[in-house]
């Protein structure tokens, strides 16, 4: 019951900050985009610790929102012969990333101190 409630609320198409990062990492890793690798890459890129579970749950959520698709890939020996789930960005995922980026750029464009050239944050 609560689970349904939660997924219902989550069925929106906004992109959170963490979600955006994960989505980008999926794009960067391309054929190697599965939960463990993404978690590793996240730690390497941001210097922040993250659990595989957290990444997996976010991937799952992004899938629900239609930004990602996934399929089971090849197995390797280092995983005890188990297959991995490889994620790929969908068109709507691409669009969401694009929108997010455009939105931020347009915000930066309006940022007065940058536009005026004198960077002074010690107001």
């Amino acid at each position, binding site marked *: 019951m609560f689970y349904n409630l939660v997924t219902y609320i989550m069925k929106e198409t906004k992109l959170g900050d963490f979600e955006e990062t994960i989505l980008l990492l999926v794009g960067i890793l391309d054929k190697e985009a599965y939960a463990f690798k993404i978690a590793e890459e996240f730690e390497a890129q941001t210097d922040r610790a993250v659990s*595989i579970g957290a990444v997996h749950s976010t991937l799952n959520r992004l899938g629900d929102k239609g930004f990602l698709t996934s399929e089971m890939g090849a197995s390797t020996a*280092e995983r005890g012969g188990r297959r991995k789930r490889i994620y790929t960005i969908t068109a709507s995922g691409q669009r969401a990333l694009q929108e997010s980026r455009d939105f931020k750029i347009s915000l930066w464009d309006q940022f007065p101190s940058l536009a005026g050239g004198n960077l002074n944050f010690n107001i």
Partner: protein
Amino acid sequence: MKSELAEEVLGDLDEKFYKVLEEKGHRGARKIYWLQVMKYFRPFAIKKTRLRLPKIATMQRHYLKISWRNLLRDKAFSSIKIGGFAVGIAACILISLYINHELSYDKHYQDQESIYRIANNYQSEEYSEMWTNLEGPFKPVLEGNIPEIDLVARVVLWRWGKVGENHIRPSNTLNNIYEGGFFYSDPELFEILEVPMVYGSQKEALNAPNSIAISKSKADKYFPNENPVGKQLILNDDTERAYTIGGVFEDFVSTSHLQGDFIMTLKDRKSGPGTSGWCCTNYNFYVKLTPNASKTAIEQKLTNVRDTYIMDKYREIGKNGLDDLQKHQSYYLQPVQDIYLNKQNIGDNMTHGSHDLVWIFGGVALTILLLACLNFINLSTAKSIKRAKEVGLRKVVGSQRSGLIVQHLTESSFYSLLSVVLGTLIAWGLMPLFNKISAEALVIPWTSWWFAPTLLSGALLIGFLSGIYPAFYLSKFNPIEVLKGKASSGASTSFFRNSMVVFQFTVTVILIIAAIVTQKQFQHFMNKSLGFEKEQVVNILGLNSLKENEREVFKEELERITAIQSTSLGDYLPVEGGRNTNFGFELVEKKGLEEGFEAARWMVDENYLETMGMELVSGRNFTDQSLDETSIIINESMAHQFGLDDPIDTQVVDMFDGTYRIIGVVKDFYFESLTSTVRPLAMVRGKGRETISIKLNSSNIEQTLAAVNSIWEGFKPNQPIRYSFMNQRFQRMYEDLIKAKTLLIIFSILSVTIACLGLFALSAYSVEQRIKEVSVRKVLGASAQMIFKLLAGDFIKLILISIAVAIPVGWLLMDELLGDMTNRISLSWTVFALASLMALVIAIITVSFESIKAALINPATRLRSE
């Protein structure tokens, strides 16, 4: 874990594991692996489980589903319903466990039916009493004359010799350690009470002279991992009379009336306990009968033995009043399982469970459960209008009345099951608090085989009982009328509901009255002028390990401390833990003509009266000179008993023919419980061996005690000082009352809570029913005050009726409870006024929430919809 995720997740986790393994080694990798696993506990990854109950018929499943939906539909109402019920059940569980514990004492013996304690039973027209103390030589008489008595053991439990508290050490160590739980017994006790032995045998453990048996826990403390039999224990540094350990027994089970850790033998003693003759009744007797022996036949035989044999002994020692004794006295064999609660009120020297408390709390538990059930019924019927359409529709589509009844019974059982689960959890949470208050060590018996079935059947029974009325009531609706919207709660149901509210509040007010009365009674005891000073007096204990002259020197050194006003060396104290001895007394000129009477006989020194702040009414105190060796000071009550107006210089004689001259009369002071009158008391000159009392005249108690301690350490570096404050020991005499008081306060709060929850829901419901009426009235110009009066007035009327019923009932109950106890408070009208006012204010506040909300609404919002 969802099965479709298993493969990828396990793969990821493996990969992580091997990566970390390279970096941090095996332990780190394992730790991180498990951490990662923990972090997978997220909603998306967990398998959805569905409750499947294939065995239950479809309709039943449907009923459960409807119950669940109803519960969710009106969450506030449901939580009041279930919460109130759960609180009542929690209270009931706690009290039931307490009662169960109190009733479980001494039921663990194999020969349960043949273990008894002998009691005297004196019954005459004017006077009746039962008590356990008997003369020591009774033992061989029983053994020699009554073959049905298999074993006889005497025990000494009153403070005689080394009974009670001592400072002990094994003979090969030096430091004295304080221990309680000492008493004397004959060797047969272990066999009679079937005490299992760890070392030594039941027969031999106490058989040698000067032997002592210790409990397993104490053996582990003093002789860890060894067999202590044959080792020596020294009591109070008395190296000349060391005790030899003859056996180690398993600790008495917690449900045994007899408790103790050190049992000293009575066998072959030279003096003191074990040696007193036909003069004095010093012993409790336990007996074990042969199988199939008849209790009544033995009681008769006991009387016969007394008449043929013991009477002569009494005559030899010149005992008076033998004719009366023969006529009125008999013997009673008390079954061992009756000793703890002691409902016959047999006088002994033991602590007992309170028989009254068991009854009172049993009553309170049932009442609270009843309140909770009524609440449940009340709330169920109050909601009936909302359910009326549902019932109507069900009938239209073909539901039988029986089906509807089953539906509502299912629903109430479902609710009650939820409440029982919640209530058990509440009881579990409150257990430590309850144990603290009741001074018990109860646990919830989760694992007992009877616990879960009892709760379950209790839940179903309560669900059934509280569901039966709403079920019949709701299923009665006429579908045509309710579907037309004409359903109204008729006069009969509102009468029913109103009377339930009246009942609930009546009980609540009575409980509040009870709580106030016990509180007042307790205050009355604590503030009662006792005839002695208890606030500034400290007792220093454990002096019996000093030598006699050392005690004198210690006393003198204490007197040099300026903050100490006076000191007195005396073991007889008017508070818990003091010694007490009783002697027969009579006037010299009436000796042999009349039967004397029994009076407490205390040995005190010349500073005693001053230290304790006791007052002389006439005559003088003892002086330090030897001329007072045959002087005696009596209390007013004793002077009265002698029938003397001016007792000074009168000669009295005690049961051992000691003759004394009365030199003073002390004002009556309470030296036993305040619930009885002051008994006669005689004081003779003598010194204590264990206790020195000091009266402080400074408020800086800590500093003074530090000074006392440094003196003590000069005398006894191997034994830490032990002291107690007299006012605390005084309070300890009223522990039962404190318990009763605290629990009554808690339960009256509970009952108020339950009653208010119900009242709140009812008022909310009635406001909801009348909201249109209220709106119309407002439109027509009624003020908020008038609306409030209209809505709250009905309920307040009910509360007033409850108060009118509760006051006389409460008065009668309390009067009965206090009985003709000495020093009881009189029931003044203020108690009842206070209780009524409290109930009324609480009720008004409860009702106000919804009423005021209704009175302040904008009528347009409510009328707009039509």
